[in-house]
């Protein structure tokens, strides 16, 4: 496996956390991983993105240029990173906020209405976990259990009460991705 991914969206959408959880899940399953945030004078509501590599080999460049997977959580992110997807690669986008269709025909584009789904679940905060479920399903890289383990690893046992809701969000994301 050598999975090169870019996660992008507004600051506050949980974009960096999504990338971290994929990296954690990769590490917990014994892979080599890297997580690299685009850092700058960013703020809530500004733009945020990160590169994640999950690989069987030691990671070369931590900065992803040619992505197997781009996750776009808002319009500017899709505009910026659609071109970074390799031919035949995957563009997963938040269709709750993005009403444009992707332009390229040589990639697989999958819309995920994360806001609607997370509202149904009763918590807009888990929109990123819905997306993460879709990512896991479409890449076939991780199971829901592995993502929840990663979340537990990241948040610690004090947040155990939140795991059920997050698990549901991941499951719904996986179900949507299955179509």
């Amino acid at each position, binding site marked *: 496996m050598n999975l090169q991914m870019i996660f992008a969206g507004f600051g506050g959408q949980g974009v960096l956390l999504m990338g971290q959880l994929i*990296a954690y899940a990769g590490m917990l399953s014994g892979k080599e991983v890297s997580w*690299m945030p685009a850092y700058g004078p960013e703020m809530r509501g500004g733009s945020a993105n990160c590169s994640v590599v999950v690989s069987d080999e030691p990671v*070369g460049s931590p*900065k992803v240029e040619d992505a197997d997977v781009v996750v776009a959580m808002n319009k500017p992110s899709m505009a910026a990173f659609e071109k970074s997807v390799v031919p035949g690669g995957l563009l997963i986008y938040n269709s709750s906020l993005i009403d444009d269709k992707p332009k390229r025909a040589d990639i697989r584009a999958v819309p995920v209405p994360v806001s609607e789904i997370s509202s149904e679940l009763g918590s807009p905060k888990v929109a990123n976990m819905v997306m993460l479920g879709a990512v896991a399903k479409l890449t076939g890289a991780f199971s829901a259990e592995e993502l929840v383990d990663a979340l537990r690893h990241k948040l610690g046992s004090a947040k155990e009460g939140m795991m059920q809701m997050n698990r549901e969000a991941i499951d719904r994301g996986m179900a949507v991705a299955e179509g």
Partner: protein
Amino acid sequence: MNRQMMKGNEAIAEAAVQAGCRFFFGYPITPQNEIPEYMSRRLVEVGGQFVQAESEVAAINMVYGAAGTGARSMTSSSSPGISLKQEGISYIAGAELPCVIVNIVRGGPGLGSIQPAQSDYYQATRGGGHGDYRMPVYAPASVQEAVELTQRAFDVADKYRTPVMILGDGIIGQMMEPVTMPEYTAPAFDRSWAATGWKEGCGRERAVINSLYIQPDVLEKHVNKLARKYAAISENETMVEELYMDDAEYAVVAYGTTARIALTAVRRAREDGVKVGLIRPVTVWPFPEKAIEDAAGRVKGMLAVEMSLGQMIDDVRLAARDRCPVRFYGRTGGIVPGVREIHAAIHAMKEEL
């Protein structure tokens, strides 16, 4: 300890604590702020002291004081802040005190940008401050290596009584990678030179920490003693990694973050049938002259790749002694060169040479 995901900055700080660093003095600047942030919390837990100084100049002079007692101490900053510390680093080198200085480099000159860069190479490897001195400089290319080199830096600092620098960049500082903290045991070092409180009848001479030698002949003797120390460091402490060099017809020379991006480009060029390897200086001072010189006799050309206008390339050329041409590819201003660009530069070198 198990593998855990850590930011480079936090990993450097934890590695320092595990190496017995108990004193940290710093002043905030991006992209290294996680180091003082982590130290402010962590040093309290282990009985150490954290001071957010009023300036970088104050911070390095606090390190000077703490190091004078023989305690393991550290400061960190980023490019403009490291410039401010240069006077203190020169004093510490002159007074022969051990300490570790971390530079998480950002784009310059001036306030520049907060994005990753390698444009402080000259400053780091040529002393930076005034006077005839050198300083070992380690350039990690991964978070795990940043941990190992930070701990080595404390040992080398104590062994030779010298300031030692960790030269990272914004990517090394901000990136998260899995880390396994090594089991660390500090070797025993003679610290009889340390100023720890002298009393009549305490059985030793007064320890004097000083870098002022007003008589020229005395200073020359001191500087020559330092020169012997630097020769010993060059002899014993040079570190370099060579990959795909056995049958290489071309070599890319790069350090730190740039080296790992270059490694991906080298692998891609190998897939195209170009016999290219990578030489990665792990210490940029002492520079791995021998590895470069030997390789220069075997390859058709070398390509130095840096996040600067070209600084390390001077050392590559000096070491290569005109045995092969040396070309350059670099980005500056905080732009990180991509795999595609370096891959193209490798092919351009092959076409030309």
